[in-house]
C-alpha cells in the first residue's frame, strides 16, 4: 500500500490572524497513484485551501506534505520542480490572454523541460485534437467560450506530463450548458488512469467518477469513503445535512 502513495498529508494547518481563523486545522489524508479523490464540503470548509496547499499555492502554517516521498513544505525543497509534476486547473481558467492557445500549451514544456518547439507543438496538437479543439490552436483565449477555455486549461496542464492533476472547482465558473464538455474531458482522463484530486460541487461527477470521496467542514475532514458510502449511507450528521442541501 505504501509504495502506492503519491501524496501524503500530515497534520496540515493553515491559520490566519494569529490562529483566530483556522482554514485548515490538522488535516491528514493520502492520495494514491491512479485514484480519483473528490473533496466536497460547504463553502468555507477549507477544501480549496487544502487543494491549493498540495502544490504550495497556499503555504501551510503547520504539518507536512510528502509528494513522491519528499517533504515539499521543507523550505530547502525546490518547489518549482515539484510543481512541474502537479498539473493544476483553476476555477477561472487562468489562461494567458496574450498568447495563442498553442503558445499557452507549449511555453512551459519549452522553457522548463527544454523540449524542442516542434515536439512540444506536436504533443499540444495531439492533446487539442483529443479534446476537440485542434481548430482553435491559433485562437486567443478571449475568442473561446468558457467550456473551451477550461478544456484548454486542462490540456495545458497535461502538456507538462504531470503525475497528478489538481482541479479547483473546474466547472463553477461555467455556464450550465458547458459543464458537461469539461466533465467529459475529466472523466476520460480518469479512465486513462490519471491521478486526480478534484474539489467540486458536481455531486453527479463525484458519484460516478470518484474512487474515494472526502467530506470537509470547518477545516477538518469529517468523513471519507467510497462514493457509495458517502452518498448513500453517510455516518456523520454534518455530512447528512450537507448532502440534504445539495442533492
Amino acid at each position, binding site marked *: 500500500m505504501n509504495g502506492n502513495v503519491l501524496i501524503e498529508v500530515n497534520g496540515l494547518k493553515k491559520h490566519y490572524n494569529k490562529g483566530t481563523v483556522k482554514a485548515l486545522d490538522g488535516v491528514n489524508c493520502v492520495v494514491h497513484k491512479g485514484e480519483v479523490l473528490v473533496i466536497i464540503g460547504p463553502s468555507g470548509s477549507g477544501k480549496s485551501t487544502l487543494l491549493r496547499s498540495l*502544490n504550495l*499555492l497556499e*503555504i*501551510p*502554517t503547520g504539518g507536512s506534505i510528502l509528494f513522491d516521498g519528499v517533504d515539499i513544505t521543507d*523550505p530547502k525543497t525546490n518547489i*518549482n*520542480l515539484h*510543481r*512541474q509534476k*502537479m*498539473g*493544476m486547473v*483553476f476555477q*477561472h481558467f*487562468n*489562461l*494567458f*490572454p*496574450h*498568447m495563442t492557445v498553442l503558445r499557452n500549451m507549449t*511555453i*512551459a514544456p519549452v*522553457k*522548463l523541460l527544454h523540449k524542442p518547439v516542434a515536439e512540444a507543438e506536436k504533443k499540444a496538437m495531439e492533446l487539442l485534437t483529443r479534446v476537440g479543439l485542434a481548430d482553435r490552436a491559433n485562437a*486567443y*483565449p*478571449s*475568442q473561446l467560450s468558457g467550456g473551451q477555455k477550461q478544456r484548454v486549461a486542462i490540456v*495545458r*496542464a497535461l502538456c*507538462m506530463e504531470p503525475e497528478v492533476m489538481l482541479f479547483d472547482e473546474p466547472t463553477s465558473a461555467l455556464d450550465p450548458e458547458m459543464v458537461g464538455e469539461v466533465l467529459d474531458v475529466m472523466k476520460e482522463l480518469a479512465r486513462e488512469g490519471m491521478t486526480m484530486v478534484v474539489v467540486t460541487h458536481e455531486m453527479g461527477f463525484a458519484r460516478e467518477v470518484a474512487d474515494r470521496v472526502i467530506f470537509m467542514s470547518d477545516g477538518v475532514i469529517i468523513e471519507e469513503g467510497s462514493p457509495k458510502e458517502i452518498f448513500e449511507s453517510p455516518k456523520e450528521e454534518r455530512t447528512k445535512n450537507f448532502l440534504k442541501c445539495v442533492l
Partner: protein
Amino acid sequence: MVSVVLHGSFLVYPEVKINKRKGMVISMTVISTTAITDWFSSSLADFGAKLQMVFVEEDRYQQMIRGFLNTLQITAGALGVGIIIGIVVAAIRSSYDKNKESLKLRGGVGYHILRILNLICRFYLTVIRGTPVVVQLMIAYLIIFASSKNGVPVAIFAFGVNSGAYVAEIFRGGIMSIDGGQFEAGRSLGFNYLQTMWHIIIPQMFKAVLPTLCNEFIALLKETSVAGYVGVVDLTKAGNIIAGRTFNYFIPLFTVALVYLALVVILSWLVGRLERRLRRSER
C-alpha cells in the same frame, strides 16, 4: 468673417455684433490692400534675411542639428536606463507586497533579502521623486561624475535614474493590476517567480501601462531641455545660444518649440500604432 474687395485696393471687413441696448450693429473695417501686400512682401524679405542670419550664417544650423541629436540621444538613453531600473524596482516592490506573507511562513533568508531590497527601492523612489531633476542633474555632473568632460552620458545617467523612479511606479501599478490567477497559473506550471514575471506578467503589464508610459516618455523628452545647465548643448540650449548671438529670439525659440512638438506628435503616433498591434489578442 466675410471680406469684400472694393475698388481693387481696399479690404472691407463687415463685422456683426449683437448689442443689448442698440440691437444689431454692423461695423466696417476698411484696410488698404496695398498696405497689406507691401507689409507682407517687405516682412517676407525681412523674414528671409533673418532666417539666413539665424541658421545659415556661421553655419549655425549645424549647432541646431547637434542640439537636436543630443536631445534625441539623451532621451533615448534615459528611456532605456529608466525602463531597466523601472522593471527591476517594480519587480522587487510588487514581489515584496505579494509574497512577504508566504515568504515569512517559508522561512529562510529569502524574506530578509527581499525586505532589504524593498527598503532600498523605497528610499530611491522617495529621494528621486522628492527632488527636482535639475538638482539631480547638477549633482550628477558636478559631484558624482566631477571628472567627466562629456555631459551627454552624465545627462543620460541622471535623466535615466530620474525617469526610472516614475517608470517603476507605473510598472508596479501595472503589475498589481494583473489578475492574481495569472501568477498562480504560471507558478503552478513550475515557473519560478522571475520566469513567471518575465514570460507571463510583464508582457501583459506592458500592454496595460503603455498609455501612461507614453505620457512619461513625453515628459522625459521635454525635461531633457534642462540639460543645458550642465553644459550639454541640447536642442533648447542650441536655440538659446543662437538667440543670444543673433539677438533674434523669435525664430530660434519657435523653431525649438516646433521641433519638440513634432517629436511628441511622432512619438504619440508610434505608441498608438504599438497599442493597436498589442491589442490584437483582445479581438
